C-alpha cells in the first residue's frame, strides 16, 4: 500500500456506513448507485413507486435534523467517490458527492492547494458537507461551502439530471442553484458531483491564544483583533466552565506570519504563540455523534458575543467569534425541561443579536421533545421552493425547517 493510500485508509477508517436507522427510522432498503445516471434511475423508480428517498454519504450527519417522516430508500452515495478533475492552474476541483473531504484535500495538496474548509466531523463527504453546510474556523478566511461551490450536478426528485454553475470562478449566467442546495439537508435534490474553487496552501501558520477574564473581556479581545491589521484566517472562542480562551490563526508567508504573530502578542497581553492549534480546534464541543449531548449551533452579530457566551453559561461554547457562529453542547441526560430552558435562553439571546439557535444533533428521545429549528423567516417562500422541486415531498421528508 502506498503512503498516500495508507493515509487515506487511516483517515477514512472512522466512516461508519449507514445501515441502521435515521434518527430512529429504519430505511426500507439501501441503494448504492455508482454514477449520476444510476442515481437518476433510482430516483425515477422511486418517483414511479411514490417512495421517499434519503440521500446520504458517510452517514456522519444522518442523525441531524428531525427524524424523517418516511424513509423507503436510503440513497447511499459513498460509491460516487472520485475526484474527477483538479485543474491546479485554474484553482478548481470537481469531485463526486461521496468523496471524503480528506481525499479531496489529499489530492489537491499535491499542487499545494486546498479547499479552504475545515472537516468538523471526521469522515465527512463532499455531499454531506454540502447538504449540512458545516464549517469550521477558516470560514473567517474563505466563507463556507456556500462561498466555495461554483458548480453542481444534481438529480431532481423526478429523476431528471441537471447542472448549474460551471467550472469557472466567475460566472453569473442563470440562477445560482448551488446556493439553494447548500444547507438544504437533502430536501431539494440529490447532488452527485460538485466543483469548488481552491486556495493555495499557506507557507506558514501560527496560532496565538489568550485567556479572557470573562465573556465581556473575550468580546473585547475579539473586537481588538478584528479591527487590527493582523488579517486573521480564523478567530475562535472556547468557553468552558473553567476558562475562556480566544485563539487567532494567522496564515501566509513566513515573514508576514512572524510579523503578525508579534503584532497579536502585543495586542493580546498574556497570549502565547505556537505552531500547533489549541486542543479542540475546528471540532464541535461534542463527539462526532451527539449520543451523549444536545449539539446546538448559535449565530449572532459580532457585537452579541458576550451576551451569547453568558447565555451558554455553564455549558460553554466553542466556535468562530470572528464571524458570529458557535456551538453549544448540553448533556443529554439533563432533565428535559432544563434542556428546553437552555435552548429557549439561547434562542432569545441570539434573536436579540440578529441570529438563531438550531439543534443540530441529539439523541432521538430528546430530539422528539424539542423544536430543533426554531423560528424561520420566509418559511412560506421556502415551502413554495420545496413544492416546486419536490412536489410529492419524497426527498428527506420532514427533516428540515417547518417540517419540509
Amino acid at each position, binding site marked *: 500500500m502506498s503512503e498516500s493510500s495508507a493515509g487515506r485508509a487511516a483517515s477514512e477508517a472512522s466512516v461508519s456506513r449507514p445501515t441502521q436507522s435515521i434518527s430512529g427510522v429504519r430505511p426500507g432498503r439501501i441503494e448504492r448507485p455508482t454514477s449520476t445516471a444510476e442515481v437518476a434511475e433510482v430516483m425515477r423508480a422511486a418517483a414511479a413507486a411514490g417512495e421517499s428517498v434519503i440521500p446520504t454519504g458517510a452517514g456522519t450527519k444522518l442523525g441531524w435534523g428531525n427524524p424523517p417522516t418516511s424513509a423507503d430508500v436510503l440513497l447511499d452515495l459513498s460509491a460516487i467517490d472520485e475526484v474527477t478533475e483538479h*485543474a491546479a*492552474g*485554474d484553482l*478548481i476541483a470537481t469531485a463526486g458527492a461521496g468523496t471524503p473531504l480528506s481525499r479531496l484535500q489529499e489530492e489537491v495538496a499535491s499542487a499545494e492547494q486546498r479547499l479552504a474548509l475545515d472537516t468538523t466531523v471526521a469522515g465527512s463527504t463532499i455531499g454531506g458537507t454540502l447538504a449540512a453546510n458545516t464549517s469550521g474556523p477558516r*470560514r473567517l478566511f474563505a466563507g*463556507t461551502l*456556500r*462561498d466555495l461551490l461554483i458548480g453542481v450536478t444534481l438529480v*431532481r426528485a*423526478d*429523476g*431528471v*439530471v*441537471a447542472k*448549474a454553475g*460551471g467550472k*469557472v*470562478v*466567475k*460566472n*453569473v*449566467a*442563470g*440562477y*445560482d*442553484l448551488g*446556493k*439553494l442546495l447548500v444547507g*438544504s439537508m437533502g430536501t431539494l435534490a440529490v447532488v452527485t458531483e460538485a466543483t469548488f474553487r481552491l*486556495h*493555495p*496552501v499557506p507557507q506558514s501558520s501560527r496560532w496565538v491564544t489568550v485567556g479572557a477574564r470573562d465573556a465581556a473581556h473575550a468580546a473585547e479581545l475579539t*473586537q481588538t483583533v*478584528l*479591527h487590527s*491589521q493582523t*488579517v486573521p484566517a480564523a478567530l475562535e472562542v472556547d468557553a468552558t466552565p473553567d476558562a475562556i480562551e480566544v485563539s487567532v490563526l494567522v496564515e*501566509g508567508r513566513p*515573514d*508576514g506570519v512572524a*510579523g*503578525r504573530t508579534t503584532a497579536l502578542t502585543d495586542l493580546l497581553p498574556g497570549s502565547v504563540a505556537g505552531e500547533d492549534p489549541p486542543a479542540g480546534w475546528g471540532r464541535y464541543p461534542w463527539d462526532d455523534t451527539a449520543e451523549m449531548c444536545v449539539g446546538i449551533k448559535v*449565530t449572532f*452579530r459580532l457585537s452579541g458575543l458576550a451576551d451569547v457566551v453568558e447565555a451558554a453559561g455553564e455549558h460553554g461554547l466553542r466556535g468562530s467569534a470572528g464571524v*458570529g457562529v458557535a456551538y453549544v453542547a448540553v448533556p443529554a441526560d439533563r432533565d428535559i425541561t432544563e434542556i428546553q430552558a437552555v435552548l429557549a435562553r439561547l434562542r432569545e439571546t441570539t434573536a436579540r*443579536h440578529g*441570529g*438563531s439557535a438550531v439543534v443540530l444533533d441529539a439523541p432521538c428521545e430528546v430530539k422528539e421533545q424539542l423544536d430543533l*429549528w426554531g423560528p*424561520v*423567516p*420566509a418559511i*412560506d*417562500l*421556502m415551502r*413554495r*421552493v420545496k413544492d*416546486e*422541486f419536490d412536489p410529492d415531498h419524497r426527498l428527506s421528508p420532514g427533516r428540515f*425547517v417547518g417540517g419540509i
Partner: protein
Amino acid sequence: MTPLETLTAQARALIPEPGVITDPARLRTYECDGLAHYRVTPALVVLPETAEQLAGVVRACAEQQIPYVARGSGTGLSGGSLPHAEGVLIVTSRMRSIKEVRREDQRAVVEPGVINLDVSRAANADGYYYAPDPSSQQICSIGGNVAENSGGAHCLKYGFTTNHVLAADFVGADGDRVRLGDDAPDSPGYDLLGAVVGSEGTLGVVTETTVRLVRLPEKVVTLLVGFDSTDRAGAAVSAIIAAGIVPAAIEMMDALAIEAAEAAVACNYPDGAGAVLVIELDGPAVEVDAEYADVARLCEETGAFETRTAKTPEERGLIWKGRKSAFAAVGRISPDYIVQDGVIPRTALPEVLKAIADLSERSGVRVANVFHAGDGNLHPLVLFDDAVAGAGEAAEDVSRGILDLCLSHGGSITGEHGVGADKAAHMPKMYAADDLDTMQLVRCAFDPDRISNPGKIFPTPRLCGERPGRRKGAHPLQESGVAEVF
C-alpha cells in the same frame, strides 16, 4: 378604466409627486440601461421613496397582472433593466439612505439606490470599505449590484456581491415583504438570498441590504508591467498564481486597448507594449512587501520589459484610470463597439486570445482585449463603424463567436454583466433544456405569474404549473401500467 389606468391611480395614491411619471417625453428618459442599443419606453415610471410604497406598487401590479421591472442607476450592460412596453419601471434612485454603518459588527445597512462607492466612503472613517467594485462603482447602485451579482477587478481575492450580502428586505412578486437571510450568518432554512442575488430582478425586488464591510488593508501596492505580447503577460499571470499568490487584482490590456486608453486619458502606459498587466497587492505590510518582491521577479522572468510601481496615490490613480476608462476610451478609436463579457478557465487564456486574434483577422473586425486575467473574465471590445454597411452585423458575428469560444473551453457567457435581455438566446448554448427547466422551478416558486422582469435571462421558459420532467418520456401512470396513451 384600463388596468394601467387603475394602476397609475393606485401609484399616485401611494407615491408623492413627482414620483409617478406618465408624460411620454419623460418616460423616454428611461427607455434603456447601459446597453443602449435596446430601447423600450415603459408604460409607467414610478420612483418610490420607501419600501412600503415600492411593495404597494408591486402588489398593484400583481392585482392588475401588469409586469414590472426594477432599476437603480441604469448602468447595467446586458439590458437587465430594459423596461417592458406594457409595464411599470420601478426606479429606486430615491431610496438612497445609508441607514447604518456598524463598525463593531463590520456591516452596513443600505437602501437599493445607494451608490456603490458611497458605501465605502461611509465606512472609510472607521477603517473599513465595501469590497465588490464594478468599474462603474462611482455611479452604479447597490440594488443593481445585488440583482446582477456584479464583481469587478478585486473579486478574485475578495469575492462577488453574493459573498458580501448578508441579508435583505425583499418584496416578492405578490407584493409581500419578507426578510431573506439574517444579521447573523447561516440563517436556518434554504438560502433564498443566495438564489435572489444575481437573479437579475426576475424573482422580486430588494428594498434594503445588509452588506459586509472589509477592513481597509494596511498596505496597497499597485504595479504596471509592460510586456511585448499577451502571451508573455499571460505567462506572468500563470507564474504568479502557481507561486500561491492571490493578488487583490490582476488585469490585462492588449495593444489596442492601451492605444484607446492613451487616446482618452493619457495614462502614460509603457511605450510599445503589446500588453500590460495592472497588478494590485494588498494586506499586511510585511506580507505585501514579500509578495511584491516575488511578483516583480516572476514578471521579469517571464519577459517584462518595464515594471513601474505607484509611489503615490496619484500614480496609483493614474494606473487604474487607464484600466477603468478602457471601455469608454475605445470610443476614441472606433465610432461604435460591443463590450463582450465572457469567462474562460484562466489557463486557456493563450489559446483563446489566439483564437480571438484569428477571428479578428479572418473577419477584418478589430478586437481590443481588456480583462480580469486572474479569473479568466474577458471583456473583448469589438470595434465597428455603424455607418459602414454590414459592419454592425460582422461585429455581432465576431462577438457571438467569442462567446462560443468561451463555451467551448468550459467557460461562461457572462462573468459580471449578467444575461439580461442581451444573452437570453445564448443560455441554451451553455445549459441543457433540463438545466434551464430546473432553474425555472425557482422562478415558479417566487413569481408564478412571471410579472417580475419578464423576458430576461431565459429564452422561452415553460409555464409554471407544468410539472418538470414529465414533458418527456412516458407518463408515470403509463409506465406503471395504470393508464395507457392512445
